[in-house]
């Protein structure tokens, strides 16, 4: 996973250790959720598997860092402006490229979005250099908080709170607003939605930009957490996000949320107790789910 803070400290007490490993797992899971939520929203509505979604995460992180470094190290300003700038990139990609491959088979969509992964990885290398950048501390959240006698980073607790808040906000938006209802109607029946007056292409653009923002927000939030930014950071998280989307059921936000929690916890426990098999566990789980319930936990059976 490569995300979590070091869990290598000696554990004097099993319960404390398990609680802390759980907290670390939850915070890892919430990052994956932020990326997977955008990926899932875009897949659920546009039926496009956006491989470049990890790229938005990476761009969100770099732009947040770049902006905050120019704004007197104000992390919050970077976190607001960075993902908004990435939204502009998402808008251009959807409006001028992706829109033309919706009617083509999945491999074409994957190829096009993978091309953007390569282009933006190189662009980031050219602009910021291939080396990793250091990350800043966040005023107010740089300390740690004692839990069961051991300190846990305040920022990780903040992340654990942000994830469910985003989930709640998305639920309220999709279930309780008319824009959300129009999105749900269009995702279940695009043609009928058009026949009652939904400007489907514009709606698709707006959903893609919203999904982009979620991924970039995850990236911005990762800046103080990961310790370093690298041009390949998007690929690491997109694999996890894909695994989460498959486990939860492609297109299901509920599935993405619980899938991300499972993967986060699994990764955290794996790193702590069986480090040799850390990476392995996630994929074993995915393979198991695919064999036992191919549509994922919350996906609809075909």
């Amino acid at each position, binding site marked *: 996973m490569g995300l979590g803070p070091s869990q290598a400290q000696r554990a004097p007490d099993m319960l404390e250790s398990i609680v802390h490993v759980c907290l670390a797992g939850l915070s890892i899971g919430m990052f994956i959720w932020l990326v997977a939520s955008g990926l899932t929203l875009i897949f659920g509505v546009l039926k496009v598997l956006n491989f470049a979604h990890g790229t938005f995460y990476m761009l969100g992180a770099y732009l947040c860092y770049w902006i905050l470094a120019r704004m007197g190290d104000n992390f919050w300003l970077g976190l607001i402006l960075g993902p908004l700038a990435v939204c502009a990139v998402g808008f251009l990609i959807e409006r001028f490229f992706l829109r033309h491959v919706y009617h083509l088979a999945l491999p074409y969509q994957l190829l096009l979005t993978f091309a953007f992964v390569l282009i933006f990885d190189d662009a980031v290398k050219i602009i910021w250099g291939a080396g990793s950048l250091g990350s800043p501390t966040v005023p107010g959240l740089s300390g740690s908080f004692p839990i069961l006698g051991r300190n846990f980073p305040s920022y990780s607790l903040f992340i654990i709170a942000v994830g469910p808040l985003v989930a709640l906000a998305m639920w309220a938006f999709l279930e309780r607003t008319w824009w959300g*209802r129009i999105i749900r109607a269009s995702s*279940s029946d695009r043609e009928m939605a*058009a026949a*009652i*007056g939904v*400007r*489907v292409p514009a709606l698709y653009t707006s959903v893609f930009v919203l999904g982009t923002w979620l991924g970039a927000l995850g990236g911005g939030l990762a800046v103080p957490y990961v310790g370093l930014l690298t041009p390949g950071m998007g690929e690491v998280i997109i694999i996890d996000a894909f695994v989460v989307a498959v486990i939860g059921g492609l297109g299901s936000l509920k599935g993405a949320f619980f899938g991300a929690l499972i993967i986060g916890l699994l990764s955290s426990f794996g790193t702590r107790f069986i480090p040799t098999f850390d990476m392995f566990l996630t994929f074993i789980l995915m393979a198991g789910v695919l064999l036992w319930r191919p549509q994922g936990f919350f996906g609809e059976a075909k």
Partner: protein
Amino acid sequence: MILAAKDINTFYGASHILQDVSFEVEKGEVVALLGRNGVGKTTTLRSVMGLTPPRTGSIMFKEKELTGKPAYAISWLGIAYMPDDLRIFPDLTCEENLEIARRLSRNAGYWSRERVEDLFPVLHARKKQKGANLSGGEKKMLSLGRALMANPELILLDEPSEGLAPLIVKNLAEVIKKIREQNMTLLLADQNLKFCRKVSDRGYILEKGRIAHSGTMADIWKDEDVIKKYLVL
């Protein structure tokens, strides 16, 4: 003339479905498209709605060309559509299925949710139910109600009487008469000649993607040769 199709040719992939189809609908009229299964009735309605746009020909609605316009723009001009498979949004409640159409419409008028629910009281009783959980008959009323909620000037109805018990078909004819009173124009595609005679003024009979015959419903009803040739199985 509120709607005038001239020589439209519509294709599904390589198959040429509608061949030089022309028809006209006057404001306030109810016009029926008649014919057996697979003669192109649904395709004609879909061509007007912009869902399968004709490759050539012209469709004028209130002096505006519809061909080349996307479905949402056609809907904004004041045309609503009830498809034969009803296409209720399964995730939305009965109430939301109605309201969404009003919110997306660019036209205001007589029809409100209260009035639609007066017309179909069961939609009021089921208003919190998800579309997916409604019965076939409820879905039909909801799909028609959703079309009304847009306050269109022209409604396209695909197979309104299909699958309904005789008594319900009779009620449906009454409903269509009530809808007509609000200065609505209807173009419907239906195989039920008796029902069409009750509700429509004129009819066009389709055969293999072409208009084979047209006339007032009274004349078509009397013309046994035409009925035998094009309508009876």
